[in-house]
Structure formats: structure tokens, C-alpha cells
């Protein structure tokens, strides 16, 4: 996984609450067995009309957001299914950070495994950022994970919380599996005592 330290990028303000993983990456694309290439299907049912034409009204179809790296959205982002295809699609499209008042649990967790930083900010901060991003074309934010701040060049700056372990994981692009495998001996010890009552 790629490490995440600090990025500065265009903010795409997607003003909708409860965006679920079905909306982020619709089911018809879950049949692929690959891990890459989902960016083209991101928000598919909103981005394309029934006949497959780009829907010019949709935010991410506007030229200025083709290079967006920060997704700004509303509460409970990523609710619904556990599909990791959702963060894969966001990452593949180019998003590195997502700012929202709250995230659904599994999605939040999945982001960290794919080099995306989800940031929860209080409602009024999110509101303020929507004001800025909607008023100014190409509005940019800097997300600094080391310092745990989000800021723009107009004086906006706010700190965000992230648990230390996940922060380290992103900062170092850590491979969690290799880290756990180091404990093979301990896991084997544990298994000796641990009772399981089924066999297959």
C-alpha cells in the first residue's frame, strides 16, 4: 500500500447524506475478479444515464473535478454493504481523502487498507467547507496526516482525530498481514488452549 503523508488537491463537494456503497459502486461491477480499474464505474448510476451517456449534471462529470483528490460529503458516508470495491473505485478515480461528518464502520475501516484517509469533521466545519468549495471553482485543501490538520490557503485550518494505529499504518504504508505473521508463534500458542466445537 502507498504511504499517505500530505496532499493538496481539488475538493469535490458531493452534497448528499447517507451515500451507500451500492451508490459508490453499483453491484453489476462486483462480478469482476480484479482489484483495479473500478474508477470508471464510480457512482455509475449517477454519472451515466440509462443508455450509458455521461450525465452532464453530475458533479464528477464536470471538467474541474476530473482531478479532484478530496471528496467532501455528508453524514454516514459508505453505509451498506462491506464491498471493498467502493474504496477501490474512489482510489482508482483519484481520491486520497474523504471529509464527512461521519462514516459507516466497515467502509471507514476499508479506506485505511487502501491508502485513503477518511476524515470526520464536525457538521459546522463540513458546512463551512461546502460553502467554500461551492463558491470557488477549483477550491483546494491540504490534508496533512502527520500534523492531523486540514487547511486551505485562505486561513481555514482545523485539526482532525484519527486513531494512532491507523495513522501509522497510512503514514508508513504498512502491510498489516506481514505484521501479524510475525506473531505466528503466539497465535499457535493461543490455538492450543482455545476450544472450537465444530469440524468440517
Amino acid at each position, binding site marked *: 500500500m502507498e504511504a499517505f503523508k500530505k496532499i493538496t488537491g481539488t475538493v469535490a463537494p458531493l452534497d448528499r447524506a447517507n451515500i451507500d456503497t451500492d451508490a459508490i459502486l453499483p453491484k453489476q461491477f462486483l462480478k469482476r475478479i480484479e482489484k483495479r480499474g473500478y474508477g470508471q464505474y464510480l457512482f455509475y448510476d449517477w454519472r451515466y444515464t440509462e443508455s450509458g451517456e455521461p450525465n452532464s449534471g453530475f458533479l464528477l462529470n464536470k471538467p474541474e473535478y476530473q482531478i479532484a483528490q478530496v471528496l467532501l460529503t455528508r453524514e454516514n458516508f459508505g453505509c451498506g454493504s462491506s464491498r471493498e470495491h467502493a474504496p477501490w473505485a474512489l482510489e482508482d478515480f483519484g481520491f486520497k481523502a474523504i471529509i464527512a461528518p461521519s462514516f459507516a464502520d466497515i467502509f471507514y475501516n476499508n479506506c485505511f487498507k487502501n491508502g485513503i484517509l477518511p476524515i470526520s469533521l464536525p457538521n459546522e466545519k463540513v458546512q463551512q467547507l461546502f460553502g467554500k468549495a461551492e463558491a470557488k471553482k477549483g477550491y483546494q485543501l491540504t490534508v496533512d496526516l502527520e500534523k492531523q490538520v486540514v487547511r486551505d490557503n485562505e486561513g481555514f485550518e482545523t485539526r482532525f482525530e484519527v*486513531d494512532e494505529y491507523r495513522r501509522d499504518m497510512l503514514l508508513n504504508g504498512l502491510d498489516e498481514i506481514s505484521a501479524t505473521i510475525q506473531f505466528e508463534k*503466539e497465535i499457535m500458542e493461543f490455538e492450543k488452549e*482455545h476450544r472450537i466445537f465444530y469440524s468440517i
Partner: protein
Amino acid sequence: MGKTLYEKIWERHVAVKQEAQPDILYIDLHLIHEVTSPQAFDGLRMNSRKVRRPDRTVATMDHSVPTSDRDKPFEDKIAEKQVHALRQNCKDFGIKLFDLFSLRQGIVHVIAPEMGLTQPGQTIVCGDSHTATHGAFGTLAFGIGTSEVEHVLATQTLKQGKSKTLAVNFVGDLPLGTTAKDLILALIGKYGHDFGTGYVIEYRGRAIKGFSMEERMTICNMSIEIGARAGLIAPDQTTFDYLKGKPHAPKGEEWEEAMELWSELYSDRDAAFDRSVDFDCSEIEPQVTWGTNPGLVVSVNGQVPGIEDFPSEKRKMVENSLEYMGLEPGTLMTDIDVNTVFIGSCTNSRIEDLREAARIVGGYKVADGVRAMVVPGSQMVKQQAEQEGLSKIFIDAGFEWREAGCSMCLGMNPDIAGPGDRIASTSNRNFEGRQGRDSKSHLVSPPMAAAAAIKGHFVDVRNWRTKIAEEV
């Protein structure tokens, strides 16, 4: 101070504790299916890793498989490739697979309990958010992403932070003619579909005690629809009776040993939950959702609400919902016509659900212009329903009777709703496009769905017989 059920299960599974890091939690049972596993196996191959405990891993195919004509090649070639990939992966890594023609094939959350693999006090994970279903046995079960599937395959553990605990105490008895599905929908309706975020819920109270395992699974299944990581119900005699004699349940001395451990699985009297709510269930009525998340729900005798009925921060969501659903505020729920009925999904496709639905259907015909289908949760359920004559009741009434799978719950296989179709569905999600692009889903219980199929619109099943008699 006492411990909650969650804490007890957690502590029994901490394999490694580290300073300033999440615990490494041992996983007792890992369930996999065709959709969220292929990339995990690729990851293993890329790093020349093996599946650490193939004997703790069980696979089936449910999400994208067809529910008819299984002897023919798949219509959907990409889905077929995915199913082939699962077969190959299970073969290469030595994992037990309940394949398309196995009598044990079915929705992953239906087959593990019915085989007795799901047992109290375990940790169970699966790359699927409705893994919470297994919590009905007092087992800590939750959905994970594909990276975590790979982590479990490689290590049989997960690195996990602890969740907060939420006690939901049901007060009073469930009124006659209402179901577990109505109860959980009413709960989500009251508290909102993100109320449980960050929590593991323990459901308690007399109503829960009185529920069968099937009903408990319906409750726990929808924990994720309230945002929770998992749902739990303390095991009791109902749980043990259900398990006894199941193919993979312990036998003889092992059963005794298991019972010793299982009987300690409850929250101590003085255990502290991070949060606790009481929910009075004595007044609830059959529920029907009207919006695009499960929390947007009213009684069948209610009406579609208006935007002003909601606080300002919710209005935009309500407006989007009404627009997508094509509903006018003030419309009586019983005036909403449906043209599609889906009885199935890991929420409501077990044998009891089918019995309940068949009770309503017996002797009637599906309304003109309605496409109705029953999709059993597993091939075992299907076989049992056929033996009990339920399938005949459905088929005679004009329902399609299908093979087991997820089917129209998410429309990844050919069972997909068309644009504009309005569905009475026993599944768990009514998100935009969930059952097919531009289709409109209303979540209900199995008897409510069955009644809607017969009448072509929603009706209160509590006066089913009398109402029909009056109209004749």
C-alpha cells in the same frame, strides 16, 4: 464489575495483545463467497502465502448465481467467471465449498446456522455486512472488507479495535400478527439508520426470549441497517435446542463441554453498557418502508410523510427519497400498488418465513400484473418447504419457486427488477437501485409481502382473513 456478553466473547479470542495497538483477535469461523474473495486469494498468491486454517474456512456461492436453470451455462459470463474463480481458489487452497449443486448450497448466513457451524461464543467473519445474522447465537459476527478477508485467510486472525456496547431492551410483548421483521424495522425507524454506528448491539428483553432462532436471526441480521458493527443475543435453551443434533454441532462429551462454556455467555447483571435504550414493542404494527433507507418506515396503516415532518437537517434526504420513490406525501400505505414481490434474502428466507408467507397465500392467486417470487435461503430450506407442501401453495398461487441464493435482494444475478418496478421485498435494504436501477423497494415481513402479492397493494395482514371475506 461484571462483563457484557461482548466483552466475554472478546476476551476469549484475544490471541495477541500489543501496546498501543488493536488486539489480534482469533477468528473461529471464516465464511467466504464468490464476490468478496477473489482479490484476497490473488493477494495470497502474489505473496506466496497459504490459507493458514482451511479447516476453519467454509465457502459457498450465493450472490451472483442464477436461481433457475442451473444445469445450463450462465447467462452472465462475468458472473460465471467469478464462480469459476471461487471453485479454483477453494481447490488450490483446500477449502470446503458448497457448490451450486450441493444440497447445502445457499446464502452464506442461512447455511452456516442450519448446519450447526454457527455456535455460541464464537467469532465469525465474512466479507459481507449481514454477517451480523450469526449474532443470534450469542456469537460475535461481523462483516469485513476484502483486505481483511485476505488477512484472515493468511493468519486466522484480525486486527481489531473494540467497539462500544449498546443495550437495546425490548419492553412488553410483541402484538399478535406482528413479526420480528416489524420489530427491527420499527426500531430502526425510531432511532435512525446510523444510530448504532461504532457499537455492537445486544438485544434483550422478553420479546427476544420468546423468539425462535429464525426470528432472532432476522433481528440480528438488520443490525448493520442501524449502523452497528454486530448484533448479539445471549444464548439460552432455545439456542441449545436448535443446535442439538445439527450436523456440525458437538456431540456426546463434547456437547457437555461446550454447554459448560456456552452457559456463561450472558451479560452480567452489573455489566456496564456504553449506552442503553428501552423500546416498547407492545404497540407496534406491521411496518412498510417508504424511503430509500430502512429507517424511513411507517406502520401499514400510516401514510407517506411530508418533508415538514422532519427536522431541517433531514429534509434534503427525505426529499431525495420521495422523489426517487415517486411517492406523494399523504398517500396511504395501503394505496401503494406493487408489481413485484420478492420473498427471500438472508433476513427472511428461512423455513419459518416461508411457512408464514404460505399461510397467507394458501387458497389465493397472485394479483394480475404482479410478478411474485419465493427464493429459499438454502437448498435445505427449499427441500424442506417442498416436503411440507409449501412450494405447491406458492406455485398454485402463481409465485415463481426458485433455487437458493441472494437473488433479487441485490440483483446481481438475472433476478433483477426493472426501472419503475415497485417491489414488496422481505430483504433488508431499500437503497436506490439496490434491486435494479430505478426500481423502488418497500421492505416488509414475509406475511406482508405475501398479502401484497395477492392484493397488488399493501394490506394489514392482521385482518387478512376477515378483510378478504368481507370483500367477496
